[in-house]
């Protein structure tokens, strides 16, 4: 397990406040995400989950407080420096946010082409990323020809193409049927357990978080398996998944799967039902 006392946080929020005309959405938000850890941000709509992810990526700037990512103070970086810095971060948007005028191949290869990677290197990388999300056959399609689940999978492929150390997921299963949701969670598990990325995952579905905490991807059998207390995989997977429940823009609960499952609070129980 990552020891917070000895390890520098990969993502760190300190007393962050962000509001709009209608009032503060995020107020006094503080939390840390440690290397190779998955932090699940739970909360109802409008509690600041998406805003927190956008602030972590420097897409929005807090009005107060500090956001540090990979040791850089993103809350104070100028936009030009942020553009370069964001290449360290993969972002999976809620609806995929694929460029609808581009093909799947162009979407996934977008970042590589921006970095002027040689064309002969791009195709194998794109195919590898699409193979990872099991969509190699869709390489020439355009987003309008894809289902909702396929769009999210392409979005994951696009996020991982440069192998960023951090991936931010904004409600990756929202609006999907249970089977497709499971496919997306399996991909997130594979990404975590294959590449060891640090992840911040916003969701209002507790089952997504529990799946991340209670299962792991076994590379040898190429399958998702339940954690077994006798194996080290269980220890690593479970201990590296924590939960934060947001309420009114603040951290209402922070803890492990067991602590959340044992919670007696009526607000927390809403997520457990």
């Amino acid at each position, binding site marked *: 397990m990552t020891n917070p006392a000895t390890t520098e946080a990969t993502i760190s929020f300190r007393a962050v406040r962000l509001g709009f005309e209608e009032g503060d959405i995020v107020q006094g938000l503080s939390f840390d995400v440690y290397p190779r850890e998955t932090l699940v941000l739970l909360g109802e709509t409008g509690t600041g989950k998406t805003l927190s992810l956008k602030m972590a990526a420097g897409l929005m700037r807090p009005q107060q407080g500090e956001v540090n990512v990979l040791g850089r103070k993103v809350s104070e970086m100028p936009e030009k420096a942020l*553009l*370069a810095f*964001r*290449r360290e971060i993969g*972002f999976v948007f809620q609806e995929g946010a694929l460029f*609808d005028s581009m093909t799947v191949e162009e979407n996934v290869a*977008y970042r590589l082409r*921006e970095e002027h990677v040689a064309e002969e290197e791009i195709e194998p990388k794109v195919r590898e990323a699409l193979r990872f999300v099991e969509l190699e056959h869709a390489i020439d399609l355009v987003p309008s020809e894809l289902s909702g689940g396929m769009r999210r999978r392409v979005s994951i492929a696009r996020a991982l193409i440069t192998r960023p150390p951090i991936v931010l997921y904004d409600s990756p299963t929202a609006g999907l049927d249970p089977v497709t949701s499971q496919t997306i969670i399996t991909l997130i598990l594979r990404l975590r357990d294959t590449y060891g990325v640090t992840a911040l995952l916003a969701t209002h579905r507790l089952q997504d978080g529990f799946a991340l905490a209670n299962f792991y991807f076994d590379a040898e059998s190429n399958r998702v398996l339940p954690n077994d207390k006798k194996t080290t995989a269980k220890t690593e997977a479970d201990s590296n998944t924590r939960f934060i429940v947001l309420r009114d823009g603040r951290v209402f609960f922070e803890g492990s799967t067991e602590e959340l499952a044992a919670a007696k609070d009526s607000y927390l129980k809403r997520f457990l039902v």
Partner: protein
Amino acid sequence: MADSPPLQGIGKEPPPSEVVRESSISEILIGSAKESVLRVQEYSYLALQSVTNLFSRPFYGQDLLDQMDSIGVGSIPIVLLTGFFIGAVMVLQTASQFVRFGQTSLTGDAVSLALVRELGPTLTSLLVTGRCASGIASELGSMLVTEQVDAMRAMGTDPSRKLVTPRVLATVLVVPLLTVMSDFIGLVGGCVAAVLSLRLGVVQFWTRAIDALELSDILQGGLKSIVFAFILASVGCYKGLTVRGGTQGVGRSTTQAVVISSVMIIVADTFLTKLALYLAEKLF
């Protein structure tokens, strides 16, 4: 308040409800004034950025060509069609006056000057505004509400470079060309109308039309089309990138882009005409 005796409130502080109403009205006025200033500031910054982006890398050449094709080539049919009939209508309208003085040969002069100085750049820009400012605003607005603009930023791309500069530059490059086409086809339309309705000779019409033009007239038309193109493209981009309120907001922004661009073009036309006439007097 309805039960209060008349004039009871004189010399006293107004009731709390009225204080609230008064302060809220002034707050609303100050708030909307501040918001207007903020909008102008945001627009000016985006417009300036679209220009300064040209002097540093990266430059999205392929996007520029795509936009030139979409805005320029795509607008040719409507510009030619309307240009032809505007020229013809100009001849019919002016000729009805010239006939009274037996000066129908001056029709070519009038149509030529009106088209090159005024109608060509203004009408072409207004047509391109209707077609492209709305298209730019709705395209960028849709990208914004579907988080494609955020996705672009998240992948290290500056949207003002990738989305705004190519559209503004493409419009500034193609609108003057479209204006030249519109001017020419307008004269063709005028010529057809002159020959058919006034029985003027083709050579006579074209000789008068070309002789009437001076370099300052052509420069005036060119200057106007460049400024109008910049206005319509930058306003379209600004309204697209500041959409609020989902898909409904996209529709609203699209309409606003056309209305604001059109009004700005007509207002700018007045000042540009005055400036061009002043410069023509001083320089030529």
